[in-house]
């Protein structure tokens, strides 16, 4: 049985504008599951519903078999970490972390040992007497984590916990959160709009769009095999073009790309795509090669922009099918702007998504 179950949850902020409609999600014991999507996709609504701050219009939320749907938020056994940390500014770090234990009327001695232990886990044992304002952003985030986990909640909820930190700290804290989560074995729901963050931290990722789930899967699966155009767009496929399906053989379909047929893996919402159906073909910038000069091994084009990224150089190439973004090893052959090149597709990593069965008009 899943540890956290959300069944047919319907939530509307305003009348006739459901933010979530018959939303279903199961989270397993000890799993870290990310809710990933753009702002307004319903991920925070889901989180706040689980926390009890939003009253559902219909549906059921249960944790560990217990019905949480109508339980007030202060009686739910949940740890919550806010984007703004929401530390209590008038209390010391120790008293911030002790707050939840005091509410639970835990004996003094036990509070002391549990808070000390929680602070040790986040590496802040020497900061117990500081006020939140005397801490850096990363340290404040650690206090927020300690405060939410020290009560040993059934479920830990994190709402965009890293978006107020700078890039380097974000990577460190990501690992910190993952390590703590695995050490405690705590079932966790993690809300983010950053696909890299979601992939690196999660056991499973849920991509959400307009209050509905687009795809659920392991980070590897969602990265390599998006099932909808929305997911592919969101997961950072740099290049995209539309084409009519020419033929289908097994798990590959054939489309025309700049005059030549290419075979790519396909995903479709309903059944096998028919010839003539519209396919959206996606590929990442590193799924194609550049060669000097124009030849028959690929699509001819002109380099219009190149930017250096350390290990790689990113080229923007103008071709007859539009501008294509291509990433090349910076140690290999380099091309200047205006150079004539050939784009060689590495189609084994390309993906075609067919969302409509009707032929392309």
């Amino acid at each position: 049985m899943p540890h956290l179950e959300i069944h047919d949850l319907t939530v509307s902020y305003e009348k006739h504008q459901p933010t979530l409609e018959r939303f279903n999600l199961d989270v397993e014991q000890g799993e870290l599951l990310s809710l990933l999507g753009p702002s307004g996709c319903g991920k925070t609504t889901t989180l706040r519903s689980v926390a009890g701050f939003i009253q559902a219009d219909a549906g059921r939320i249960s944790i560990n078999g217990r019905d949480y749907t109508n339980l007030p938020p202060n009686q739910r056994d949940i740890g919550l970490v806010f984007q703004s940390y929401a530390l209590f500014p008038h209390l010391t770090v120790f008293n911030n972390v002790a707050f939840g234990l005091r509410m639970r009327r835990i004996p003094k001695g036990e509070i002391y040992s549990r808070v000390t232990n929680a602070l040790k886990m986040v590496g802040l044992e020497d900061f117990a007497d500081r006020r939140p304002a005397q801490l850096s952003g990363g340290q404040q985030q650690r206090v927020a984590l300690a405060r939410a986990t020290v009560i040993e909640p059934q479920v830990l909820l994190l709402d965009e916990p890293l978006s107020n930190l700078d890039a380097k700290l974000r990577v460190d804290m990501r690992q910190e959160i993952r390590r703590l989560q695995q050490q405690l074995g705590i079932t966790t729901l993690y809300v983010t709009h950053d696909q890299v963050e979601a992939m690196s931290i999660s056991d499973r990722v849920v991509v959400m769009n307009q209050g509905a789930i687009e795809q659920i899967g392991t980070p590897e699966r969602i990265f390599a095999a998006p099932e909808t155009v929305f997911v592919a767009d969101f997961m950072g496929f740099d290049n995209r073009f539309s084409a009519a399906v020419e033929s289908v053989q097994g798990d590959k379909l054939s489309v025309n790309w700049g005059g030549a047929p290419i075979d790519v893996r396909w995903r479709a919402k309903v059944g096998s795509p028919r010839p003539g159906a519209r396919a959206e073909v996606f590929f990442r910038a590193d799924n194609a090669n550049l060669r000097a000069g124009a030849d028959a091994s690929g699509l001819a084009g002109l380099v219009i922009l190149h930017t250096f990224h350390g290990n790689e150089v990113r080229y923007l190439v103008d071709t007859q099918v539009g501008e294509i973004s291509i990433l090349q090893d910076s140690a290999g052959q380099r091309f200047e702007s205006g150079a004539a090149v050939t784009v060689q597709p590495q189609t084994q990593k390309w993906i075609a998504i067919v969302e409509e069965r009707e032929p392309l008009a």
Partner: protein
Amino acid sequence: MVSRWMYISLVILYCFLLGPFIIIFMASFGANATMAFPPQGFTLDWFANVFETSQFIDSFWVSLQLALQSTMVSLIMGMPVAYALTRFQFAASGLVETVFSAPILVPGLVIGFAMLNFFVLLGDMHVMTGLFIGHTAILFPYSVRVISASLRNLDPYVEDAAVSLGANRLRGFLLVVLPNMQAGIAAAFVLGFITSFNNVPVSLFLSGPGVTTLPVSMLSYLEYYFDPTIAAVSTLLVIFTVLLVQTAERLLGLSQFV
């Protein structure tokens, strides 16, 4: 050279701010029969005169009582309003804020005159009650504003955090929001107290036979006498105000906020 000009303007500024007070202060110890500067001789007679003039003593107690009562009541009324204005966005919140700041924008004389007419219409009202209502009305917007400012600095999610940790809404407010309003409340208290204690225009209209506030009785004293007694009262008032602010600072940590 910027710093040199800044120094000079600073000195000029201080002269304007403190100069009149220094003159009053020195005049209050002068032996002349009328106020004069520089004073001649030294005497404490004018201070003795203050304490022998029942008009000042009585009106001081009226002012003190009035300032304490109206400040307390305006704080108690202002807290929920400030909380609601900062925490909830509602359709009329802009309108409510404008209405609440009206007593700041409207000249005190107009308020005093309007209230006098209003109270006369209501009939036989005790002078003290009228003063209390008038002062509470002018202090209310200050307390709303100052407390709102302290609440705006507080992350609105701290209440949710307290609730998620097991506190109910009331405990969340008492344990997390109220302690963080403390500095704002203290600032509003001092500001309100001084505003009420120094108010002339509203008190002028609402004072009645036998009941008058200290600033109003000082004004009427000035109409008949020009001896340094009034300077002595002023000196005492300044000392009283400074002590009040100092005490509030010690007790409540005002400087964290202002």
